[in-house]
């Protein structure tokens, strides 16, 4: 069990470093889109939500999973779309 945990911590720490490395300098124009885009990515928890709601015999766990899907999907759909809307605005008058 500690092996699984340790492996997870490896992945977690390395991914944080990757995050710090790729997001070095952000122009202020992109502060908001980066935040809303990153937020949409945190909707990845939907992967867990789907598994949680799959049971064929609905129980408390299924209802919690269903709510998780709703919240995560609002996050995913809303986050990516609103980010695109903002970025379209930024690119619109480049010429």
């Amino acid at each position, binding site marked *: *069990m*500690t092996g*699984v945990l340790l492996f*997870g911590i490896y*992945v977690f720490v390395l*991914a*944080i470093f990757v*995050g710090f490395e790729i*997001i070095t300098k*952000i*122009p*202020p*124009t*992109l*502060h*908001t*889109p*980066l*935040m*809303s*885009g*990153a*937020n949409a*990515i*945190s*909707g*990845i928890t*939907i*992967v*867990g*939500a*789907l*598994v*949680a*709601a*799959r049971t064929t015999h*609905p129980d*408390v*766990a*299924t209802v919690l999973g*269903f709510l*998780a899907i*709703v*919240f*995560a999907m*609002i*996050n*995913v*759909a*809303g986050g*990516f*779309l*609103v*980010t695109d*809307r*903002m*970025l*379209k*605005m*930024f690119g619109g008058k480049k010429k």
Partner: protein
Amino acid sequence: MNEAAHPVVLVLYLLSAVLFIFGLKGLTRVRSARRGNAVAALAMLIAIVGTFVEMGTFDPWWIFGGLLVGGLVGSFAAVRVQMTAMPEMVALLNGFGGAASALVAASNLWLLVIQPGVPVRAFDVLGGSSAATTVLSVLIGALTFSGSVVAWGKLSGALFDKPLLLPGRHVLNLLMLAGALVLGGWAAFAASDLGTIAILVVVVIVLSLALGVGLVIGIGGADMPVVISLLNSYSGIAAAMTGFVLSNNALIISGALVGASGLILTRIMCVAMNRTLANVLFGGFGAEVAGGPAGADAYGPVRSGGAEEAAMLLEAGDSVVFVPGYGLAVAQAQHTVRELADLLEKHGKKVTYGIHPVAGRMPGHMNVLLAEADVPYEQLLEMDVINPELKNTDVVIVVGANDVVNPAAMKDKTSPIWGMPILEVHHAHSVVVIKRSLSPGFAGIKNELFEYPNTMMLFADAKKALQEMVREYKVIMG
């Protein structure tokens, strides 16, 4: 990773993680940002497809019902939201991410520990790592949710903007955190009675929700850029914790990326205010610096004028810099600013915008607003770029900004904002400050800029003042 996971699923998750990294990288450059966002969305789709492959058979009603409801609500909100309401939208989305992560962890606990109905410790079923991270996921997810809802309330005006500073709030918050951790630990490792576990988890959720409220309620409006970035980071960490619960690397990686990105933004915001994160979170800035007088009577003679005088200054000048602040967003004056700027440019004047990193209520707030009004982003200059140029600027028009242009930050060592980098507009030949009254800014301190001989106060609503300036300027120019 799940021992039972299909190799195809693992490859899809890996592909998804790689694409998230590319997408996030793309989001950090103007040229590639839109594509980066699309790549991240594709990565999400791949991860979801991977999950469907992994699940095989499932009851479609709950799943597709949830996807449909969430997808419709999210899309509708994204399409309809006003650009001026973007801070509220982002705050709320952060919160939903946190809530989803907490719900997944709680659902997993219910399914595996409580539902079977056999008295057992969560630790024995889930294993130590999963049991501990279940508690963390619920804790961080729930406090992200309630903290974000409070932030949303403050930003949308549903709640009071000023910090609410309860006596002993730090002790109270600390007790709630300790309580949630201890009771969570009991539920995860010690309790074997299922009823007890369920009650403990509910108490942990309630404590975490209260903690989120407690942490954010004491923070004022102008510190919101820091708070929103931090909650953004938390929503990622909560997802990563859920990844630990489910032993799912896709969640751990993506959550960690979001956590890192939110932390970087948080740091940028803190540096822009010359304050530490601890100071923002625990300082209760604004209400505690009640020492100095700050109302209108704190000021000596102040020169005030009307739109006509401002228009004359503009007519005489060759270079104009607009400095927008939260007041611009409140008055929804971004389009009027653009109108005035267009007019000035038509008469050969050089127009730029000086943007302070913490102007407004979220990182990049002013950029979003001005972009909505079609202001070319090349004209939006960062603090370091615009400051050396302000000496040679004829007219600076400050629209609804206050503390970010207060020279006290450079000159008065006793000032609470001493050391905060500011836009040095007082170096310009003339400064027009559009403001409704002499009421203090968020920091609750006097702005000596208003007394400077080269400053003219224009007391009015930002939008009305700018409209009148457009009119007067047209009259002057014939």
